[in-house]
Every structure is written in C-alpha cells, then in structure tokens.
C-alpha cells in the first residue's frame, strides 16, 4: 500500500457496555489510498491503531450482508463504499440505526432473525416432490416475477433506513416482507395463504407509510418498498374478498 500521504479522520461512535453508560465518539486518523473501502479503513484502525474496535464483516464484496453501518448518517455497506468519497471531510461512522447497539459498530439483529423465521422463508410446495420426480421446472418469465426479491442479502440497511421500524420495532419491516414476497411470487411455492397472517396484521404491511427510503438504500436493488406496498393491495383484496378467495388468491 503506497503511502502518498493522504489521511482521513474517521469518527466512530463507540460503546463498551462494561465501561460506559452511553456511546462515546472516538476519532482516528487513517492513512488511505483511493482504492480503499471504509471497511479497509476500519481494518487499519483495528490492526494498527486500536485493536478494541469491534465491527462485523466477512466477504468484502457486498454479498454477505455483514458490514452494514451508518456512514455520515446514511446506511451503507462499508465494503462497498470508498474512503475517498468522504475526503477531505470527516467520515462519521455509527452502527446501523434502529437496532440496539451491542458493542461499538455491532448491533443486535435478533429481532430481524425472529421475524424472518416467522414468515416461513422457504419453498412450501403444493405437493412435495420425490427425487424420482425430478427438479421443479420454472420458465424465465416465472423467475422474473420474484428474482429481484431473491437478491436480498439480509444486510439490514433497509431497517436502518425505515423510520417506521425505528419508531416501532413491532413493524415487520421491509426486508422480511421482501423475502415474504420472494416466496409468495415463486411458482414453486404454495404457502401464500399461510403467510397472509403476517401481511394482514397492523404491524405487517400496515406499519408502512411508503417513505420509500428502504428501496433507496438497498445495495441489491431489491425494492422492498414495492414488496410491501404490493402486499397492501393483496391484503386489501384479502380483506374485502376473503369469502370469495379463501386461500388468498395469486400473489
């Protein structure tokens, strides 16, 4: 890593529950090159400046969803964002908003995990297929109906973006509802009516006011706002026509 002398100030919101009651700010001066990601900046801090700094990361290539954090107030993946984008200004890093801070930049994501489990995030076919029956056949057009929603990497940026989730953690939230739609719209799945209970609840799709910031920040163009609001229509149809279409109709 060539040293051309450029340094950036990174201000991190730190929190160590065993030594402080509230988060505190700590600033590090990090030498960097134009090809360095924010994640690499954090790794430099941990490797050379302050080994106590805690943060999640894994793939370094925007597919594992581990490194989400607030960069100057905007939820981003630190591996996908460059330090040079913030230079010569200061980079202010906070853990993902709307989640409890566990330690430093690590948040407690257990609420998301339990909500995800609650929507049966797997294919439940009408009739289970045996190995002898062979694979499911699906046309490109059938794939197109749900493919964008399958791109979700569970990075939680949409939850950090969503003020309704911030105001009330009971809200199911954009990511989980996008994954719900991923399965409902998959031609191999037949469990739409099973998932309607989550959709129809006050904290299902009805917790959303279409702020739309979730889709803005999604690093994978999942468009969770579309998943949620399309299901407002589904939920409304289910509400008024439930006796005509008892199993929930097509997604």
């Amino acid at each position: 890593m060539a040293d051309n002398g450029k340094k950036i100030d990174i201000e991190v919101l730190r929190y160590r529950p065993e030594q402080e009651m509230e988060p505190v700010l700590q600033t590090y001066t990090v030498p960097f090159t134009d090809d360095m990601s924010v994640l690499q900046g954090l790794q430099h801090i941990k490797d050379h400046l302050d080994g106590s700094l805690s943060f999640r990361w894994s793939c370094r290539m925007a597919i594992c969803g581990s490194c989400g954090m607030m960069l100057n107030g905007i939820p981003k993946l630190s591996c996908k964002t460059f330090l040079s984008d913030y230079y010569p200004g200061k980079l202010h890093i906070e853990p993902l908003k709307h989640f409890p801070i566990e330690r430093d930049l690590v948040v407690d994501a257990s609420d998301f995990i339990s909500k995800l489990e609650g929507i049966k995030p797997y294919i439940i076919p009408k009739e289970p297929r045996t190995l002898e029956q062979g694979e499911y056949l699906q046309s490109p057009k059938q794939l197109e109906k749900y493919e964008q929603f399958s791109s979700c990497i569970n990075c939680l940026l949409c939850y950090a973006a969503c003020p309704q989730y911030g105001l009330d953690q009971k809200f199911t939230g954009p990511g989980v509802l996008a994954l719900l739609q991923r399965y409902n719209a998959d031609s191999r799945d037949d469990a739409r009516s099973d998932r309607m209970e989550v959709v129809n609840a006050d904290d299902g799709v009805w917790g959303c006011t279409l702020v739309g910031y979730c889709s803005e920040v999604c690093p994978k163009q999942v468009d969770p706002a579309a998943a949620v609001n399309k299901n407002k229509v589904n939920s409304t149809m289910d509400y008024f026509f439930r006796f005509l279409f008892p199993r929930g109709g097509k997604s």
Partner: protein
Amino acid sequence: MKKRSNEPVFWSLFGAGGVVVAFILPMLVFITGLAVPLGFLSPEVMAYERIHAFASCWIGKLFILAVISLPLWHAAHRIFLSLHDLGIHWGRTFFKWLCYGLAFLGTLISLILLVVI
C-alpha cells in the same frame, strides 16, 4: 393468531382520495381558488345558476361528492399517521376518531346536501 388489521378500509379511501387529488385538484384549485377570484377566468364559471345546475345533475353530484369527500379521507389518514411520525404517541384513539370522524362528517353533510339540491 395475529389480529387482522382494519387498515384496508382507511387505506382504500386514502388511495382513492390521493388519486382524486393528483388527477383533479391541481386544475380545480387553480380554477376555483385563483383564476376565477382573480378574474383570469370569467366570473360566470362559478356563477350561482351554473354551479347550481351542475350540482343538480347526476354527474355534477358525483363529481362534487368525489372532490370533497375523498380528499377529506386522504387528508384524515395522512394527518393521523403523521402524528405518529412526529412522535405524538398519546391520544391515538382520540385522534383517530377526530381525523376520520371529520372526514365522515364532511362526507355525510355533502351527501345530504347533494341529495337535496
């Protein structure tokens, strides 16, 4: 079993209202609130005979009902939800009755008057 929300009722009215506001109100506000009062359009546009005749026919009644009632439901829903956004978490039941109640009253008054005209 999670309780089913009744939001679809209010959301449908909100949506219908939003459509009316988007597709009709810009020109309607311009005509009724600016063009006629300021004289850009002839005062005849909103004269008593003309508007009374409009309100006497079916299409006129439906139009007037739509541009009064649906925007009221739209505004009621948005304002009620915005209270929550602003951090006002007390009096939810009171504000819900107030907001939707006003929309309902406005709808009722409009309906009664239009039936009678």
